[in-house]
């Protein structure tokens, strides 16, 4: 039903921001990881968002149109651009012949800033959801 579309859109925002939060948590948790499945140190993960567009056929006029249905996570990619940190630590088991260890390209400061952005966006979506809810409750008062 159409009035619940606003709910679905806000929920998609909540889901997406939560996934972003998950990737940030993963980055922070792995900021010292030197071994991964792919070999080498952990690489920072980034969640890419995409507008969720849907093709719809109007039931009255039969016209096809594209409607927005919120946001979706396009993919979670690995950050290949930021250079890996290299630390001199010959006693580390993963050190190379010259004593250098490749550390993850995670910058904690960046992650904290992204985390704040994700939290605020999540809150904004909750506000929108509550506003829609208040509107539909008000609609029940029509004719009272």
């Amino acid at each position, binding site marked *: 039903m159409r*009035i619940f579309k*606003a709910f679905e859109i806000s929920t998609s925002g909540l889901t997406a921001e939560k996934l972003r939060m998950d990737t940030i948590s993963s980055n922070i948790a792995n900021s010292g990881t030197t071994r991964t499945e792919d070999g080498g140190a952990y690489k920072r993960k980034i969640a*890419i968002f995409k*507008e969720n567009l849907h093709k719809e056929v109007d039931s009255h006029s039969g016209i096809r149109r594209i409607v927005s249905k*919120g*946001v979706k996570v396009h993919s979670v990619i690995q950050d290949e651009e930021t250079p890996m940190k290299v630390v001199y630590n010959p006693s580390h088991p993963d050190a190379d012949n010259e004593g250098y260890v490749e550390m993850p390209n995670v910058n904690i400061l960046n992650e904290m800033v992204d985390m704040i*952005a994700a939290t*605020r966006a999540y809150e*904004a979506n909750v506000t929108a959801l509550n506003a829609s809810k208040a509107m539909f409750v008000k*609609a029940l008062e029509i004719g009272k």
Partner: protein
Amino acid sequence: MKISNDMTIQLLNKALDASVKRQGAISNNIANVNTQNYKANRVIFEEELKKAILPKNNAGLMTTKSKHMSLSQGIRDIKPRVVKDTHTTMGLDGNNVDIDVENANLAANQLLYNALVTQINNKYRVLQHVISEGKK
């Protein structure tokens, strides 16, 4: 006067529809606040309404009977349109959603919706008053 075809109720219905649509558009903008290259959705309704009710846009074609043709859209045909706001820029990622503006619009839209519901209720209360012959 036909109760069900009343102009006020028709107009209020249209405005309520537009308000719900705008709520969807604002929710969509807020959900996409972190999406790269996303452009904000805006709902065009008031302008369309103005076009439909201003007599000067009738191009001089008066309608005196229901079967007469008119160049202007009737109230019945006005539909809120969703357009992309491609003229502004915010930040470096091609996204132009201003979260403060969206929040303000959200609050304004909610108040408008409440006002419309109150108005529609007042209208029905008047009808009720007439039906009960002014007893209540």
